[in-house]
């Protein structure tokens, strides 16, 4: 077997509980984003554009839809005879049977997968970030420095730095200290959760970590501090560009809204860095005579006869005459009747909104659907939920199916 220069491992097992009803039945990386994508399309497409053709996707929580979505990897050109994409769930073996205990343990349990490709380097990615990044350049920096590990960092506003894992680096970019959510940050360079390890070092540290009963088996909490403590050479790789963690309903909504500015904060219409996705084989969208669409994106398969302002509309959505959608995200196949009004909402896939319903328009102190997860007055309607004709869903609601 030809050894691989770099194999990518995408951590896609997390539940994403802060996304509420959006991740009740699917893993976070399978959550729809940006009109025709799923979150996992971003790391997968980045890998392919970066020349990485061997990718393991580590799944655990609700993997069914994610497995089916990835399939044989063809949409990302990852249906390779030598390499390609592999879905890696936890498994039983003669010695052990256990779930992935933490990010580091998940990779540890798949060392035999990595061994099969005998890679020089391993790229560790998260399945919940929206960004376009050339990992090949990071790999080049990693190899040139001879570091044991390279960590991608990006500058964040100082006032928000205490929410992140902060890397303190010297003038050459070598990491001297790592602080998880520091109260008084010394730097504003946040870890993006993107690591390249030299394979030998990774294997050694993961194996040691596994034998440490006090470890949480987590890269951020255990592996990185341990390596720094042992004086391993670790460098930072500075990323400038759009990057967003979409772990909450509000951040997911915001990241969708970021596509709508002119020019957009995050541009998906980039012919040199297309984001690939599994295609739904839908016809072009039809815009009716009563429609008015402004400052929005609309995808194939839609039937639009109402008004859409500043919203992201996924494939196969129907919107009846007289309905108005504003500042919202409507996921695939949702059906919205006539004269409905939807504002500041995330409407899940295949949800049905009846004629004349109001979603996110009025507020009430006595809201039985109120949810702490729906910050900033956002409304989340779970995929497949039915909102009856004329029903009034107050701001800050989460409606389950």
């Amino acid at each position: 077997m030809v050894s691989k220069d770099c194999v990518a491992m995408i951590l896609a097992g997390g539940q994403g509980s802060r996304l509420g009803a959006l991740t009740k039945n699917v893993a976070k990386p399978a959550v729809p984003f940006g009109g025709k994508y799923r979150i996992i399309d971003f790391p997968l497409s980045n890998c392919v554009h970066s020349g990485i053709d061997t990718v393991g996707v580590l799944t655990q929580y609700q993997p069914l839809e994610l497995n089916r979505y990835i399939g044989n990897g063809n949409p990302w050109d990852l249906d390779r005879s030598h390499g390609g994409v592999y879905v890696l769930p936890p498994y039983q073996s003669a010695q052990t049977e256990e779930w992935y205990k933490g990010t580091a343990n998940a990779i540890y349990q798949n060392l035999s997968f990595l061994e099969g490709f005998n890679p020089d380097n391993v790229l560790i990615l998260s399945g919940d970030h929206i960004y376009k990044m050339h990992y090949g350049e990071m790999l080049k920096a990693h190899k040139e420095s001879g570091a044991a590990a390279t960590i991608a960092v990006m500058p964040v506003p100082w006032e928000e730095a205490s929410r992140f894992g902060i890397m303190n680096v010297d003038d050459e970019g070598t990491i001297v200290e790592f602080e998880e959510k520091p109260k008084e940050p010394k730097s504003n360079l946040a870890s993006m959760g993107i690591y390249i390890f030299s394979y030998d070092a990774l294997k050694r540290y993961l194996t040691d970590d596994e034998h440490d009963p006090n470890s949480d088996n987590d890269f951020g909490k255990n592996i990185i501090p341990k390596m720094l403590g042992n004086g391993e050479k670790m460098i930072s790789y500075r990323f400038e560009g759009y990057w967003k963690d979409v772990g909450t309903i509000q951040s997911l909504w915001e990241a969708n809204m970021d596509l709508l500015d002119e020019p957009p904060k995050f541009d998906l219409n980039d012919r040199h860095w297309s984001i690939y996705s599994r295609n739904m084989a839908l016809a072009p969208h039809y815009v009716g005579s009563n429609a008015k669409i402004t400052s929005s994106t609309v995808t194939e398969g839609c039937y639009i006869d109402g008004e859409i302002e500043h919203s992201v509309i996924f494939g196969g959505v129907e919107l009846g005459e007289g309905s108005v959608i504003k500042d919202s995200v409507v996921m695939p196949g949702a059906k919205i009747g006539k004269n409905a009004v939807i504002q500041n909402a995330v409407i899940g896939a295949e949800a049905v909104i009846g004629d004349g319903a109001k979603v996110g328009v009025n507020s009430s102190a006595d809201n039985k659907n109120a949810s702490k997860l729906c910050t900033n007055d956002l409304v989340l309607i779970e995929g497949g939920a039915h909102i009856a004709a004329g029903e009034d869903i107050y701001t800050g609601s989460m409606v389950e199916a």
Partner: protein
Amino acid sequence: MRTDTMGIILTNNDRIPPITDIRANSALPFAGRYRIIDFVLSNMANAGITNIGVATESNYSSLMDHIKSGKPWDLDRKNWGLNILPPSLEKMTYGAIKGNIDMLAGISDFIQRSPQTYVILSLGNSIYNLDFSDVIKQHIDSQADITILYKDMRGVEEKELSRFTMIELDDKKRVTDIEVQPYYPKTATASMDVYVMEKALLESIVDECSARGDRDFVKDALVKKMQGLRIYGYEHSGYTDKIDSLKSYYRNNMNFLDKNIRDELFNPENPIYTKTKDQSPTRYGADAVVQNSFVSDGCMIEGTVINCVLSRGVKVKKGAVIKNSIIMQDSVIEENVDLSHVVFDKEVYITKGRKLIGQESYPLAIAKGTRI
């Protein structure tokens, strides 16, 4: 999956200048994101047929680029799958294709090697969405030698009917007469140029015709053999037309603005597949006005678009007004341009403030890459 039937698509060479100057008719961009051949190909794939030959005549590089391995139709198979068959000059009577018999003779090796019993033969410029399983079933049940798909076109004007091969049927649906594009049609039953028969019969017809220098499958084989063969009709009640002129190209595109036609041709139970381009969703600007239009992914619309079909990646800048038009992939309409009844091939660029007006009876067609 259906192991007893193979498909043969004869790509068509009806010329529609300037849009067929650079590609075969069957490879014409159509209905926004599709090519004409997608309809026939998807129908065959949806019936579970996994051995399909696409016989080409000339100008086939765009077709090959579109079809490639056949992946979008799930036809990238270990056994059989999709085969693009370029013309074989050696097998033609006079070294040039003069009729569909020449095309079939040119692919006789492919036909011979195929292990299937039945063959569906279709021209590559027909638009329809139907279930071939039902056609094959009727063909077998009726013990027909050949089954011809037809459409009852009563109510369509005579001049339009003259574009088709007209057939006459008895009350048991046996074909009693065939006339190719008659000036005064006797009936209103038009052949869809789709035939089902046993592969062995097709082989013997092709062999006999080419041995005698006959060139046309319908005029030389079906018409002459009508008495000896049991030729039956299968009625398709849904939408069908063929793309053989700019007028029919324009009209068939515009028909997608009709909900009933859209719903029938894009039936989710029988999807039409095409090559994917991974374009981002279409963006509408703050001043966009779009009405009664069929819009593909990857467009950026800042102007006004009314009664139009837009392919992928079309840009319509502020103040531009496009009405009753068909705009193919990656064309750019600059600010304050005024367009009506135009057909733009790919990558047409219209500079600021220009005005181009065609008529419904005579749409203005502009060649690929033209800058005005």
